[in-house]
């Protein structure tokens, strides 16, 4: 019974949150339209947090995802201005994400800088580049092709006449790809092994350096996709629009880790973490809770979830003894 509580306590808490909103907002909350809306609201965060999971599996971090998202949006917008076609501009922006990730990977894996320090530095570098390329301006209006902005607003129709947002589809696809990579391929299991014990992995013939390097590429590309989704949604690009993503993404991964049996990051758990944050945001907004108060509440809920999970794992006595 106690183990069941420990295992599923986090999940129960999350269901309780959903239940609370469902009762408080009986007419609007538990509707398909609202849930599709939530899924679209969190789609960027989903992509970035899923990509973040790839490096966190190895015990690493990437703090530069937010500024990479901004940079990718800016790159695409600037290329639109220069008359590039949409696919080419998007591909170039994704290429920038790949290069940025590769650079992070080289710094962490080959040069051997702590991920925290290396990606904190590239956070500033990418952000600065976004300002330099855009002259610090927001690119919007006629500079952005209509088809690019329309993508985020469109989506295939579901029976009942509601559209399934394209952004939700992109997020689902990204999660699926990363789930396959992490859970269904030997590549992913090797990343988990590195997270478990890096030296042991090396001695067991795991190419640790190469794998760490490549994992950061996933995060770079994921951040770029997230940035492009955002740019499409607001049909504009500015050098600060990805700023909030990094902390929220890391929070989502940590929330997810409280759900897994062994406390490891898993991408589906991350997805649940993302939805908890999304549901809170959506529900509290509908209840007209002031946005500053909302931030306090979201932070407190994260603390409560992670804290309760730690106590559940070791028992309160175990925590006190440590």
């Amino acid at each position, binding site marked *: 019974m106690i183990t069941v509580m420990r295992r599923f306590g986090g999940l129960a808490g999350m269901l309780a949150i959903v239940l609370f909103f469902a009762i408080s907002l009986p007419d609007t909350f538990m509707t398909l339209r609202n849930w599709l809306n939530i899924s679209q609201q969190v789609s960027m965060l989903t992509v970035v947090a899923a990509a973040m999971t790839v490096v966190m599996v190895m015990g690493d971090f990437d703090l530069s995802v937010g500024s990479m998202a901004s940079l990718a949006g800016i790159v695409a917008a600037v290329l639109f201005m220069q008359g590039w076609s949409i696919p080419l501009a998007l591909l170039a922006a994704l290429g920038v994400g790949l290069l940025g990730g590769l650079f992070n990977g080289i710094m962490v894996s080959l040069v051997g800088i702590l991920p925290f320090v290396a990606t904190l530095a590239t956070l500033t570098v990418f952000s600065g580049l976004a300002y330099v390329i855009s002259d610090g301006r927001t690119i919007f209006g006629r500079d952005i092709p209509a088809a690019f902005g329309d993508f985020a607003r469109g989506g295939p129709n579901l029976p009942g006449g509601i559209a399934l947002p394209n952004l939700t589809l992109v997020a689902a696809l990204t999660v699926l790809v990363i789930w396959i990579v992490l859970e269904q391929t030997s590549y992913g299991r090797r990343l988990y092994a590195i997270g478990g014990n890096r030296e*042991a992995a090396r001695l*067991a013939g795991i190419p640790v350096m190469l794998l760490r390097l490549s994992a950061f590429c996933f995060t770079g590309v994921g951040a770029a996709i997230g940035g492009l989704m955002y740019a499409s949604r607001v049909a504009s690009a500015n050098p600060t629009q990805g700023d909030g993503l990094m902390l929220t993404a890391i929070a989502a991964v940590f929330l997810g880790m409280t759900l897994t049996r062994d406390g490891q990051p898993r991408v589906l758990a991350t997805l649940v973490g993302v939805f908890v944050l999304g549901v809170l945001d959506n529900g509290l907004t509908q209840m007209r809770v002031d946005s500053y108060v909302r931030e306090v509440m979201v932070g407190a809920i994260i603390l409560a979830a992670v804290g309760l999970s730690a106590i559940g794992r070791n028992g309160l006595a175990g925590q006190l003894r440590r």
Partner: protein
Amino acid sequence: MPQLDLDRISRAFGAVQALNGVSLSLRSGEVHALMGENGAGKSTLIRLLAGLDRPDGGQITISATATHGLTPAQSKASGLRFIHQELHPVPGLSVAENMHLDLPYPKRFGLVDWAALNRAARKALDRLGLGSLDPRTPMTALGSGDQMLVRIAATLVGGDGTPPWLYVMDEPTAALTTAESERLFEVIAGLVRQGAGVLYVSHRMPEVVRLADRVTVLRDGEVVSSRPLSETSASQIIEEMTGRQLDAIFPPRPTDKTVGPMVLRIAGLAAGRLKSATFDLRAGEVLGVAGIAGSGRGALLQAILGAIPRQVGQATLGGQPLRSSPVGTWAQGIAYVPRERRSEGLMLRRSIAETIVLPHLGALARAALFLNPTRQRQVAKERGAEVLLKARSVQQACQDLSGGNQQKVMFARALAGTPRVLLLDEPTRGVDIGARVEIYRLIGQLREAGLAVILASSDLPELIGLSTRIAVMRDGHLAEILPADGLTEARLLSRFYHRHQEESLSA
């Protein structure tokens, strides 16, 4: 000189006679090793000494005062101190504060006198030759080895009553690395020089041979033997612990007929600590690697594996040049069981199955990429059964296993890829004697099956009992290769220092 005598001590738990008429004398100024298999009665004896349990019969005499049983307070007041393998330090506090946990802090005007506190700690640390430890550093900054040394030093801080004179150490090196163990041994030597006695409980033969003045062997709650180390040997102790003859412990040595074709050829190899090594290895052969700590035993294995970059020399496996990194050599058919299994081998919180298949993920996957969990579990189960792994299921986390079973996981992992050469670094370190015999039998079976094995070990009976030939390492050089058949421990040991002896003779 204080002395502690146990006279015909007995203790039964239900129908199980944990101790049966055990008599033992512990004196200051010597290291007394207490050896025995799991369940031989060592732990019960320690609990009686600590006052955590009382004997059913017999008498305990400490410095001419006889009693039928101790309380924890009496035990402490008589100068007994207990160092267990499990440490419970307060990580946030400084070293000095941890040393004063059960003592009043020195005070001045009602406030803690930090200078005096640190001075007292400094004095105690210095007495053990631990000048490099700063009493002000937080406990967390120390490795588990240093934390244990601090614990020992803490017994020397202040306090009233009889000063501590007898240290009971229960498997103190179980959680320590080799280097940390070395420092502990130096501290033990220092304690003994200062007149303390040590009851050293361990099943690690090399440590006992090195540290002990007297050895007492327990089996099934009774004393099998108790005599000075000089009158016994590692092989004899093993025989007494197990009640079996040594040749029943080690698998039969192969004859020439069972040795197969050449597999591994190493010529003039140097890498890191390894300065030079040249040898050939045939299928069905076990090459022992012997030498003192730091002589390059482990470096030889890691150089073959490619874990440390090879500088010069050739290494070929079945005629093909050996690749330069563990990624390549595992793929070529080299398998490795590391010395420090906790830090170099296991992902403690991960499952047995995950650990076993790790080096073979590519080979076990569909299209070399997509996992096949059914096949993984099957391989893990089969290999686990082959090495006689005792676990609830292959999904169990490695940290829940005993040392012996953790080591079997390492063997299962090495064997899952059907290797051609198996590199073993201290394969029975921290493994109880029961699991050890099973590992010996396994090595024998692998040899029979035509695997070539390189076995680096500090355990002399093990080297002599398992190897066909033994390579002796001296100062990073593979100095000579001796046939193991007919070799004695004394003769092998003398080869460790061979050149030093020649030098001292010619000087």
